Structures are given as C-alpha cells and as structure tokens.
C-alpha cells in the first residue's frame, strides 16, 4: 500500500467534536471557585497617566482585587521580536494607544469586573496624537516612545525623525542607476493600504489556575507561538520558564492575530495575586481595540522599462504603520520590502523600508506577513505600466516572470518549484485572454 498522503482526502481528526459542540475552546473551560477579570484600558491614545483612583471600584460588592503597576513595579516589557510593550502603565508613565492597560480588576462575576472597571477614575495629561506615519517621520512630530529603538541602523536618512522609527531595512541588487539609464520609460507611483482586522471568530480568552504542588501558573489560552508565549510571560513576570505552563485548547481561528501576547500576562498576574482560578475574555470590541491588525503600508515604486518590454530597474520605498508597539512589525515590513518586484525578473533593485510608530493600535502578523499589501502594489504597477505602454498585461507579465535560475530582490537564486509562467499560461488558456 502506498504511504502517500498528499492528494488524498481525510476526515479532519477533530471534526466530530466540533460538529457536536464537544470541542473545548478556552471559554468552555470552567473551574469551581473561578473568578473573572477585566482590564481597564487607556481613555486617550497618547497621554501621561497622572492619577488612578480605584477606591470606588474596590468598594463594589464582589470585587476581589485590583492590581495596578504600583503593586508590581518590576514587571518587564514584552513583545515577539522587540520588547517594547508594558504590562501595566504606571503613574507618570505614558500610554501609547487605546489598548494600553492601566489596571486589572478581579471579581466574583464578569459583570462585576466590568462595572468596577467603569468606576476606576483616571486622570491623564493629553498629548498630541499621531495617527499618520508620514507625520511621525517628520522632525517636528511629537515623540511617541521616550527611548530610541534599539533596532535602528547607521544608514537611517538624517532627514527623518529617528525617535518614531522602530527599524529601517535596505535592499540593493545590481546597479539601479544603470538600470534606470537603460530604461526607455520610467513609472513612479504611490500605493496605500489600510488597517484590516484578522477577525478570527473567537476573540481572545484565557483561563488558568495556580498549581499549589508545583508552584506553577497553568494557563489555557490560544496562541500561535506556544513556547514563545510561555517564555515571554515568564520573563515579563521575572519567573523561570518552568513556573509558567501554557496549554493550547481548541483555537477558534487566529490568522496571525493570536501570535501576540493578549490575555496571558494579565491572567498570570491575577492568578498569582488570588491563587484562585481566573477567566479572562476579551469582548469583540476589546479585541479590535487592543490586538494587532494587518499593516497599512505606503508603497512607492519607481520602475524602469525598456522599449522591448523588459524591466530594467525597480526602486521601492515602504513605510509601515507599526502603531504603538513593535509586535511582528520588524519582520512584516521587511518581508514586504523583499517582495517588492513580485515574481518578476529585475536585475537592478534598490529598496528601503521604515517601520514607523504611531498612536494607532499595533500592527502584526496577518496571512502573508506583508506580502499581500506588496502584491496589490506591484501588480497594480504592472497593470498601469502595461496600459501606458499599450501592451497586453498578461504577456508583459509572462515576458518578465521568474523561471528556474531567476534571482529575487534579496539575491536568492530560485532552483525549484517556479511555476509562475506555467500558471499565467494556464490562466490564459482558461480565459478569453488566451485568444
């Protein structure tokens, strides 16, 4: 019997549990004596926290505990690639977006926790809000993070404001000046994309307890990076990794949104503070305000084409809206840049990308990791160029498309599985374009 699996139909192993409602997702897990928690979030996207009064909230019947930064002064920042996200905003510290956490409220019921959050009095000193990365790049723009990013390179353009840049990346292949000199026509265009929420149907949730025997915090919560989540929770709390256990229940969709820490650290704090089981569920609105989005990218392409229809040079600038915290931005914006020419041969390429902080909700991973935005831009560029040159867009693509031996903008030589020409030909054969 053949052991080949690919190309055969199999029933999904957990489908039966899912069609009968037996599959356990995070919120389906209940413990006796379980408490519920909510997090009080920032009332303004860019502001100093001046006062936080929890007296009224604490006196509400059913409230068990309220935790603020004052209770845990030694918490470390967290993040997937660059640790710039605070666990709790303390008095005198700055909030950078509407999802920033000010206090953790633990209560006997979810409703009580929610009402107690509303009773917390917050005083802030509002600062100018920056929502446009182009504004953030200007020298006179308000500074979002007080510390300079540790990811900046020496090559950074001196005309830009380094205070609001998380990272810069560069691409150089061949000689772009020579390439443009050989071009008969040069096209310069700017493309913009918008925020998109990944919107998995299950919003973020966690449930956990303190295991007295081992002194371990056990958390059931969906994550796309089980071990990274465990390590990040541990380092933020200053605990050894073996004191944090993350258990993956059935996941109700993720699409990149569950790569980041969400409920995990706050839940661990609540469990440690009460030594009781605690459940923490985001509302859909909370999920949308607090957790990552697909990056809005500003993409500027300058492309040189010779009269024979071959691409001679391609120059790209990418500006990515990071929002308030790094998340996967250093990788996503960089990866977008690497795909700037799409599947088309160009011998001479130059590129630069900037991941730029704003006071928007942070951006992170979503299906394609920066390449979906780039695909929209390079294929729009190809269409617009074909239209202006009066040539067939499909054949323009076919003429320039990758084949075995082609090299990508970052110099990778493609040695196998390069089917773009075959794909274009098959699509043409299937459509009227093949006429």
């Amino acid at each position, binding site marked *: 019997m053949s052991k080949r699996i690919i190309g055969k139909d199999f029933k999904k192993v957990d489908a039966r549990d899912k*069609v009968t*409602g037996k599959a356990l997702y995070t919120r389906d897990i209940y413990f006796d004596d379980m408490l519920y928690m909510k997090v009080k979030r920032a009332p303004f996207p860019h502001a100093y926290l001046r006062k936080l009064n929890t007296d009224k909230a604490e006196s509400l019947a059913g409230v068990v505990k309220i935790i603020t930064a004052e209770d845990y002064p030694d918490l470390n920042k967290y993040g997937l690639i660059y640790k710039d996200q605070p666990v709790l905003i303390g008095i005198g510290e700055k909030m950078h977006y509407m999802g920033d956490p000010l206090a953790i409220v633990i209560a006997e019921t979810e409703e009580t926790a929610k009402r107690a959050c509303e009773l917390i009095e917050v005083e802030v000193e509002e600062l100018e809000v920056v929502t446009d990365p182009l504004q953030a790049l200007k020298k006179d723009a308000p500074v979002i993070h007080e510390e300079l990013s540790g990811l900046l390179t020496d090559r950074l353009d001196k005309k830009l404001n380094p205070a609001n840049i998380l990272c810069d990346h560069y691409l150089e292949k061949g000689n772009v000046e020579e390439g443009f000199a050989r071009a008969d026509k040069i096209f310069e265009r700017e493309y913009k994309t918008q925020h998109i929420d990944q919107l998995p*149907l*299950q919003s973020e949730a966690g449930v956990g307890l303190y295991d007295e025997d081992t002194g371990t915090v056990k958390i059931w919560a969906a994550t796309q990076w089980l071990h990274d989540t465990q390590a990040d929770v541990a380092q933020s709390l200053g605990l050894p990794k073996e004191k944090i256990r993350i258990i993956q229940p059935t996941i109700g969709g993720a699409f990149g949104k569950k790569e980041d820490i969400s409920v995990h650290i706050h839940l661990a704090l609540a469990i440690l503070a009460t030594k009781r089981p605690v459940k923490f569920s985001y509302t*859909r609105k909370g999920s949308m305000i607090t957790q990552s989005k697909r990056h809005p990218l500003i993409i500027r392409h300058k492309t040189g084409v010779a009269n024979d229809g071959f691409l001679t040079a391609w120059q790209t600038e990418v500006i990515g809206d990071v929002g308030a915290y790094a998340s996967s931005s250093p990788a996503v914006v960089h990866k977008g840049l690497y795909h700037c020419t799409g599947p088309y041969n160009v011998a001479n390429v130059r590129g630069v990308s900037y991941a730029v902080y704003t006071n928007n909700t942070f951006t992170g991973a979503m299906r394609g990791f920066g390449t979906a935005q780039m695909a929209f831009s390079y294929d729009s560029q190809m269409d617009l160029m074909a239209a202006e040159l009066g040539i067939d867009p499909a054949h323009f693509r076919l003429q320039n498309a990758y084949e075995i031996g082609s090299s990508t903008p970052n110099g990778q030589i493609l040695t196998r599985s390069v089917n773009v020409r075959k794909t274009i030909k098959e699509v043409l054969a299937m459509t009227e374009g093949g006429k």
Partner: protein
Amino acid sequence: MKITLTVNDEKREVETSPTTRLLDILRDDLHFTGTKEGCGKGECGACTVIMNGKLVSSCLVLALQADGAEILTIEGLSKGDQLHPVQEAYIETGAVQCGFCTPGMILASKSLLDRIPDPDEQQIKRGLSGNICRCTGYTKIIEAVKLSARKLAGKGGEEDE
C-alpha cells in the same frame, strides 16, 4: 428571578437576572458550551440556537424572553452516538475548520432544510446569511448543505462526491 426552559428535550429551571442573555444561561448555567460567542451583537451567528422552532442569536435573547421556551442547541442534534445527517455532511465535505462557527452554521443549515428540503445555491446562501465563517470561504459549507439535503432525502450522497 427564576425561569423555566426546555433545552434539548429536558426541562430546566435557572435562577438568573432579567438582563442575563440566553447565551450565558446556556453556557454558564447549563454548560451547553457548544453555543459560542463571536461578537455579542447579533452579527456573526456563532451563538445561533433554535428557539420555539425559529433560528435566533442567543446573545440577543434575554432571560425573560426565554422563559417557557423550547431550545435546541448543537448538543441536542445528535442522538447518542448517531450524528444528524447535517453533522455527517459537514464532516464529509471538509466544511469544518477552526469549528467556532460550526455549531451555529449547522443549526442554521438544519433550520433551512426544515423549511426548504432541496434548496438551490441562492437559497442556501440566504439561509446561512446570518452566520459568518472566517476560515472556509463558504464553498465547502455550501457543499455540506447540498449533501445534507441528499442525505435527508434518503439518497445517502456518498457516491455523488
């Protein structure tokens, strides 16, 4: 306050408050956790149940409205180990991915097939228009409803795939 409701053919009494949602009664009090919360605003259909024969978003039904009602949740669809034909069809067509929309989607499919035993594609789309799926792109789900219709008509359907 106390309400009485019949869930999956079993009469239940629940001590609750007037503002509690049917969704919370089903999940937190009675532990029918197959009913999911996706948005809490009646937009996504993950919390769909059948109440008095009609499809409802249980996040939009308050305790008082559910007093005396007959409710069918996903847990009540199969009889023992015997899956309902719609459940079988969802498994066989690969219409289940993350599964979070699946209970609501299956109940919406059943409700549609109760009214229209042999729906065309437009009727299927309209019948499922209150339920959002973020994984499948709906193609397999529509196939599942078509297969369900054949199964319910006694045609088995396996040979058609």
